[in-house]
């Protein structure tokens, strides 16, 4: 009981059900840990009074036996999700005073399930970054090594879960922003199929790629949250009409005979040997458990990063035009005419990485360049997607490393945007193709840094992926590893 912060959601569920602890005790435990930590900078906003009020209501529901399976369980939200009456910054100065007047659908679904919000987690500004160093609210540290980055853009969520400041958190993933920080911090992170989870109230970065998902200790916990997060939402024009999901019920199938595809190109140039070794061992474990290994090819995925750095900035340059200092957020103090007000507001409010991406996107969409950049990238996107269709004729899931390296040190890549972008080499293809993908802990490097195993499944086949991950976690204990300083 004294190590509540190391427990899984499933374990906390049974504590609450059996009356071994109350929702209030749980909330207080995590609030104290958040308060006591002065290293990670994982949270931007914490409102403990609000948290305790939610916990109080959860206890009432639990005592009446009227709650849901998740009633009373605390979680943190990435600060990209609008939360009614609570500051929502998206990691940017331009939203440093934005108290959202409504809840994102993800937030309201989890609230309705009785979950207790611990606070809003730090992130790269507008989710643009792979190290959490672009946040206006300061960098986040990696609980496994304070000098290292936690990954990004959902770095605050990943660090909070890894360090036991929250038992679970929400994240968003446009090119790897759930899976890469999950890998760097040694937790489990899932990006669902595009359209599964509503994007309503989730501040848009690249709308054809963005997808929300859970960040947890285990695949079993991720399934629990996904069962609530997924579902049709009329407020999101690309939300899928889908039957209610029950991924939790699909975890127990034996994995004997499951065909695992390994793309050779994901195990070659650019992959650090220490990562490759750990991932190889994980694959051997799955083989021993009865999985069958198949060689596959994803030839066009080599061009996924260039393709992404046209499409995502293009969509961002359009999405971020709404931040103009008129209806909400920061407005410059001094300005002349309307254009000057827009320009001063946006120049003060956005950081350099956001400006770079807006400018790349503006350039790619501008007259005379559209075909060479935007249209070309959309064609490549189709080829990348077609590669997956072909590959999934030979295998059930695709496996590989989540990242080419373990978490790097802060400031190591801040001066070289392109080097930073290459972090997402293995994760971007799934976003372009709209496929579900996840990262789960595969072990530690010789220096004790977490390494992630990446799984991609066919469209809408989250259940298959979570099943494999859960079975792996039943046979290994990498997901139980906890950073020394936060035990």
């Amino acid at each position, binding site marked *: 009981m004294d190590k509540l912060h190391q427990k899984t959601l499933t374990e906390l569920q049974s504590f609450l059900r059996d009356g071994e602890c109350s929702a209030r005790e749980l909330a207080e435990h995590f609030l104290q840990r958040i308060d006591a930590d002065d290293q990670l900078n994982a949270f931007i906003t914490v409102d403990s009074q609000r948290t305790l009020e939610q916990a109080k209501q959860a206890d009432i529901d639990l005592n009446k036996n009227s709650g849901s399976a998740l009633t009373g369980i605390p979680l943190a939200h990435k600060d990209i999700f609008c939360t009614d009456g609570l500051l929502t910054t998206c990691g940017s100065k331009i939203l440093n005073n*934005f*108290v959202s*007047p409504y809840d994102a659908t993800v937030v309201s679904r989890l609230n309705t399930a009785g979950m207790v919000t611990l606070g809003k987690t730090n992130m790269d500004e507008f989710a643009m970054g792979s190290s959490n160093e672009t946040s206006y609210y300061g960098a986040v540290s990696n609980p496994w090594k304070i000098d290292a980055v936690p990954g990004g853009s959902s770095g605050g969520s990943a660090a909070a879960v890894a360090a036991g400041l929250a038992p679970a958190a929400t994240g968003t993933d446009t090119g790897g922003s759930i899976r890469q920080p999950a890998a760097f911090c040694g937790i489990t992170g899932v990006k669902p199929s*595009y*359209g599964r989870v509503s994007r309503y109230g989730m501040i848009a970065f690249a709308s*054809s*790629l963005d997808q929300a998902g859970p960040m947890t200790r285990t695949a079993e916990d991720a399934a629990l949250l996904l069962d609530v997060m997924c579902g049709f939402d*009329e407020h999101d*024009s*690309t939300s899928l009409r889908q039957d209610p999901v029950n991924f939790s019920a699909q975890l127990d199938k034996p994995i004997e005979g499951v065909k695992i595809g390994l793309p050779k190109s994901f195990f070659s140039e650019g992959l650090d040997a220490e990562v490759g070794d750990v991932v190889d061992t994980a694959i051997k474990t799955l083989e021993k458990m009865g999985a069958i290994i198949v060689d596959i090819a994803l030839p*066009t995925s080599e*061009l996924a990063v*260039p*393709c992404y*750095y*046209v499409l995502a900035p293009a969509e961002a*340059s359009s999405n971020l*035009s709404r931040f*103009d200092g*008129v*209806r*909400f957020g920061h*407005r410059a103090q001094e300005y002349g*005419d*309307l*254009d*000057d*007000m*827009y*320009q*001063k507001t*946006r*120049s003060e409010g*956005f950081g350099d990485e956001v*400006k*770079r991406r807006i*400018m*790349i996107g*503006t*350039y*790619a969409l*501008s007259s005379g360049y559209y075909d060479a*950049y935007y*249209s*070309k*990238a*959309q*064609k*490549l*996107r*189709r*080829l990348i*997607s077609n590669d997956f269709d072909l590959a999934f004729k030979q295998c059930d899931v695709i496996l590989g490393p989540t990242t080419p390296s373990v978490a790097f040190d802060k400031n190591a890549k801040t001066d*070289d945007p*392109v080097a930073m*972008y290459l972090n997402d080499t293995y994760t971007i293809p799934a976003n*372009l*193709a*709209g496929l579900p993908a996840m990262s789960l802990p595969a072990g530690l490097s010789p220096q004790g840094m977490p390494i992630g195993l990446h799984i991609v499944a066919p*469209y809408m086949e989250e259940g298959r992926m979570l099943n494999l991950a859960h079975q792996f976690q039943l046979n290994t204990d990498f997901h139980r590893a906890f950073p020394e300083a936060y035990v």
Partner: protein
Amino acid sequence: MTISNEDVQKIARLARLEVSENQAIKFSGELEKILHLVEKMEACDTASVEPMTHPFDAALRLREDKITETNQRDKFQTIAPATQDGLYLVPKVID
């Protein structure tokens, strides 16, 4: 593709960003590097490929044309930088 400081200023202007001369020098180098990465796309022949605009080629959903939302103007304007009589205030556009 080379990006001059003037190109940066032009793009910034289109994007309603203000960029100082010093920043333009920094950005021009960085944008050039990013475009250099992006131009690797040219290695792949896409002549007969249909552009993919979206992860699944679904048409946008239509809904019935009826009022579904309530008026929350006051609530939304409490977070606006400047309002008056239910209107958002901006610098004068037309004399």
